[in-house]
């Protein structure tokens, strides 16, 4: 071992304080469960040339940042969730995989909120695959987010149960195909929001641009994107 000068007492004091504080911190159980799920979904190690499973490929594309969630389970006020709460759900990594489509190779079953189903872009030109879902409640209101990944990007799509919630002031407005979209930034992430059948829809991503999010938001099942 390389010989070193003794650590100054002042340095040792702050080092001890950091070490003591760090020793008290444990990873949340939710994080442990997600990592265990990742391990189970990981490709087998028998062949070094094995291709990544779609689930792992999607996880690699995840680069979302959580703004923050107010302690929603402790707040029973029946008032509207804040936009920041809902956007934070969209930006977080998924908590669980999507339900299977049934037959082998079938696309997963997409969840719904208030009868509004999340889109499946599986066979579209958007080249996005749904990788998981996160369900939350914010001030008594359901917020569901589906995570999509593809081409090195992760995009979170959140739908807030009716009625629609207010968009923060200062957002830039864009209209495409008759739908009005609001563009803003949240903690370094690009966010696009609009209303769909009276529900607030939010697309958020740390790595995709506003333009990309707008193309996703404006996508229609018939394959044509709104101009």
């Amino acid at each position, binding site marked *: *071992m*390389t010989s*070193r000068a003794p650590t*100054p007492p*002042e*340095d040792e*004091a*702050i*080092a001890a304080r*950091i*070490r003591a*504080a*760090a*020793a*008290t*911190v*444990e*990873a*949340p159980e939710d*994080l442990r469960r*997600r*990592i*265990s799920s*990742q*391990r189970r979904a*990981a*490709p087998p*190690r028998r062949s*070094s040339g094995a291709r990544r499973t779609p689930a*792992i490929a999607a*996880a*690699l594309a*995840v*680069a*979302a*940042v*959580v*703004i*923050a*969630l*107010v*302690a929603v389970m402790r707040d029973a006020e029946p008032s509207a969730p804040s936009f*920041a*709460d809902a*956007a934070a759900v969209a930006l977080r*990594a998924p908590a669980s995989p999507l339900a299977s489509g049934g037959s082998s190779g079938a696309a997963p079953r997409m969840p719904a909120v208030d009868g509004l189903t999340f889109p499946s872009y599986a066979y579209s030109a958007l080249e996005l695959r749904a990788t998981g879902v996160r369900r939350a409640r914010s001030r008594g209101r359901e917020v569901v987010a589906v995570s999509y990944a593809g081409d090195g990007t992760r995009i979170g799509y959140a739908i807030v149960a009716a009625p629609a919630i207010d968009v923060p002031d*200062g*957002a*830039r407005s864009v209209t495409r195909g008759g739908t009005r979209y609001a*563009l*803003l*930034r*949240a*903690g*370094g*992430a*690009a*966010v696009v929001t609009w209303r769909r059948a009276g529900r607030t829809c939010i697309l958020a991503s*740390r*790595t995709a641009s506003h333009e990309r999010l707008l193309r996703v938001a404006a996508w229609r099942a018939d394959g044509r994107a709104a101009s």
Partner: protein
Amino acid sequence: MTPARATASATVPSASRTLDPAVLPDHVDRLYRAAWASCGSREDAEDLVQDSYARVLAKPRLLRREDDLAYLLRVLRNTHVSRLRAAARRPVSGGELRADEAIDPNGATRPEVALEARELFAAIATLPAAQRDVLVAVDVAGLSYREAGRALGVKEATVTTRLHRARRAVAALLADSQEQAPAR
């Protein structure tokens, strides 16, 4: 008090070996601490750890003369840097959201301890990257100076110098915040 040492491998192997996925859960706590001190945010730390594990699990990983924790910390650091660069490339448009961060009582055993960890990690996250990385590796994650040097790709003497500066900087930050705190 000596830093806690990585327990998954007692010696640094001289030959290359493949990282065993079965040992990954052993390091979640340390990686989470390192991530929190790097990001300054508990929620960002969770995502950073999950993303880092996803990268590691994507394919077999070959370790050369480093132990599991040191390798995982290197992956965590690189993932964090990639995320910061991606965020820096995004142009600013529209309004900026503000959000408050709630203290998570599950983050530590007692609320006052949680506050101490939160304050320290927030200070560490503001350090210049070179200082932050060595402080996280040695004082937060518990690597030795040699292990930290290998993980960060710097000489042990460089670790010593940067660690000294990082510790002084954190002490100064905490002293400043105490001076500005209202009297109780």
